[in-house]
């Protein structure tokens, strides 16, 4: 009782602080926008309920609500279809509208590159990122490969990926170039099928998010060889990074939020403030970071914009190398 009252008081203190922050940054330039946000904000989820993007978006909305960082509600809305194109285009077409928001995902980059979407990353305003998900390279526990360098001994390796163009396919290409060993990617229809393929020994190596790999590693069915983040991941303190092992391979999935193009800089500043608070909050840590073993990492709008352009460039190069696009 006491605790909840205290925390309510505490968050009320915060809400005034943050609202003041948003309003101040807005008032400085345009008085008309002084009271952004004045109505509820729709958070468009371009995928179905229960998936990774859905959980991410709903958790962010939930934490913002719990911390009372905005005076309005965030309403999550699933708009699946067209490999993300339906949802993302509905956001991207709302030029200048600061009341729609979306999280980025792999499809945010790849579907436009494959020519399946009327909008691309250039049609969005990056707001900020709050976490990164590294990938861990694993082999079956029974595999002859004990370290990353052991993979060099192989004549040729196979890996399973979800779809043709994905982070796993990108990392396979990077590993292949780095180690000088041929790695062929076999596309499957979902993480579950890739997991079945590696556990059944039908592919040699695989790349998983920490939350997918951890239970298998703990059970002793998969062996981790390297992680793809710049620093070691908390979930696997004993697993070296690719960089430590002497390979310049760093690629993580960035969890961040975007709005349509041309929203006012004051709105971006407001959201940067909100996202920074989310990223540093204990609620975000317990509800997301600890559960999915992501690396907490706040990026402001400019840093996130650079990361988005970089990521899109990486995918584009990969797709050209694979011959998916010209």
């Amino acid at each position, binding site marked *: 009782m006491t605790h909840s009252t205290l925390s309510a008081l505490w968050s009320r203190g915060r809400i005034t602080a943050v609202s003041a922050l948003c309003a101040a940054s807005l008032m400085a330039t345009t008085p008309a926008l002084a009271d952004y946000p004045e109505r509820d904000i729709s958070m468009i989820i371009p995928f179905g309920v*229960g998936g990774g993007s859905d*959980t991410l978006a709903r958790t962010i909305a939930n934490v913002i609500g719990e911390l009372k960082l905005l005076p309005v509600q965030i309403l999550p809305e*699933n708009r699946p*279809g067209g*490999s993300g194109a339906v949802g993302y285009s509905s956001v991207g077409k709302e030029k200048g509208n600061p009341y729609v928001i979306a999280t980025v995902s792999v499809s945010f980059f790849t579907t436009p590159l*494959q020519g399946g979407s009327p909008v691309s990353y250039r049609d969005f305003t990056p707001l900020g990122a709050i976490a990164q998900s590294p990938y861990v390279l694993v082999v079956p526990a029974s595999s002859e490969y004990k370290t990353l360098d052991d993979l060099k001994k192989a004549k040729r390796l196979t890996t399973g990926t979800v779809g043709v163009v994905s982070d796993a396919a990108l990392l396979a290409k990077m590993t292949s170039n780095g180690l000088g060993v041929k790695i062929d*990617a*076999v596309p499957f229809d979902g993480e579950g099928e890739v997991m*079945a393929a590696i556990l059944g020994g039908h592919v040699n190596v695989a790349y998983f998010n920490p939350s997918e790999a951890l239970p298998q590693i703990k059970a002793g069915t998969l062996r981790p060889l390297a992680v793809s983040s710049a620093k070691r991941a908390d979930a696997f303190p004993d697993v070296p990074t690719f960089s430590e092992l002497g390979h310049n391979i760093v690629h993580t999935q960035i969890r961040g939020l975007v709005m349509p193009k041309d929203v006012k800089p004051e709105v971006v500043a407001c959201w940067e403030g909100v996202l920074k608070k989310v990223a540093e909050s204990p609620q975000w840590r317990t509800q997301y970071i600890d559960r999915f073993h992501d690396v907490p990492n706040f990026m402001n709008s400019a840093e996130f914009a650079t990361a988005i352009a970089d990521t899109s460039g990486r995918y584009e190069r990969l797709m050209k190398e694979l*011959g998916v696009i010209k």
Partner: protein
Amino acid sequence: MEIMGLLIDGIGQAMQPSILASTMLGAILGLLIGALPGLGPSAGVAIMLPIAVTFGGTAAIACIAGIYYGAMFGGAITSILLGIPGDAPSVMTVLDGYPMALKGEAGRALGMSVFASFIGGLFGLAGMVALSVPISRWALAFGPTEMTAMMAFSLSLVSVLGGRNSIKGFAALVLGMWVGMIGLDPIAGPARYTFGQMDLFDGLDFSVVAVGLFGLTAMFTSVSDKIDRDAASFSLRSLLPRFRDAVASRWELLSGSIIGFVVGVLPGVGATAATMLSYATAKRFSRRPEKFGTGIVEGVAAPEAANNSASYGNMIPLFTLGIPGSATTAVMMGGLLMIGLQPGPLLFVNNSEFIWTLFGSFWVGNLALVFLTLLLTPLLASILFISTALLYPVIIAVVMFGVYAIEFSMANIVIAIIAGGIGLVLMELDYPPVPLVLGLVLGPMLERNIRRTMIQSEGDLSVFVQHPISLTLFIATAFVIVLPQIMRVLKLRKIPADEAEAEAMPADSERTA
């Protein structure tokens, strides 16, 4: 024996008011979602997930799972009464269920589907309880190479469903395979046959096509028929289930349950393919194959036993290995994470109480669904007394809502209507619709696995005979194809199923009359 003790304990745990209530809620919602044409278990589970997780812990997952197996009961209802598959795994139930309803045996068909669902469910549950761990290890042996062989074997078995003109049957099969190719090429990447429409990027949803092809076609044809159907032939007797049928169909129930379970465990195959195999097997080994498709209880028993059994089989890799083998179990995995459990090989060890309570709730839910659906049978069957002039407009509206609700997409409504139109053309030209849906389900699986195998082996075809499981399945395939020809040449004995295909089946085209 230890397992029995754990299970009884689990059933006891599942009787706690909170878990019992959420199991019932899930089962009843599943029944409704299954019965609503278009909406199936995967969409239903996804829609309910955010609400169910608020129940917390075991109750949340008991509710979600209830929706899954409840939908397997519910899907049969509209398949039988209206000829509209309630969801993808009940498409095959239309083939005999709907003709039975037209003959005035709606109650009998519904009763059979309830028995079959119950038996299939019991079998699946028993298998789940006793064999979870070994069978999930066995399923891992199926890589792309083995899956290719499995699909070839499946296609050889389902060839008995081609209709009386094998050329037309093949044409419909190829059409189905082509429709299955629409969308992003799953192996190489580029879009195929999407004509720049982003709604086609993810391919066509099978249940949307099936609802159009069977359900809307049936209603479209009624436009040219006389306005109302003769309702006089229906009697009270027609509304009641017949318990004798369950005994008469015991072999179909058994084979359906086994096929459903085994196919259900394999990741990426699913309940729909299981029903097709089960129906085809029942027809091939039946003493009266020529009657399949004309409205016989065996034709309802086989697929309905298979889809329920498959729903439990499908959950096994999720609970034992942390591998979601289908869209529905992928959402369930999301549910496990949301309630703070880590799906994976250690779930059984670390959370055994959760697992056994959940399994207990499956038994409770399965039994409750039997009583519920048996009680509802007369009520549901009497829907056929309503004039089609009143019924069909309402049904079309419900179908449109169901199709829309899968992805909240208007595009799906358009696709369903187009499928209905194509169904009408196929019917007028006397092309069978069944091979089309077979092609649509099995074709993409065959294509993907051939291409995956070729990437793995760098184009070397000999892997198909080097892998023992694959070799065995290909030999079985050859056996299924060649044996009838040898028999025919040697004039040894007539295989009833093939004979029936060779001869005309006049009742076939009357199905939707």
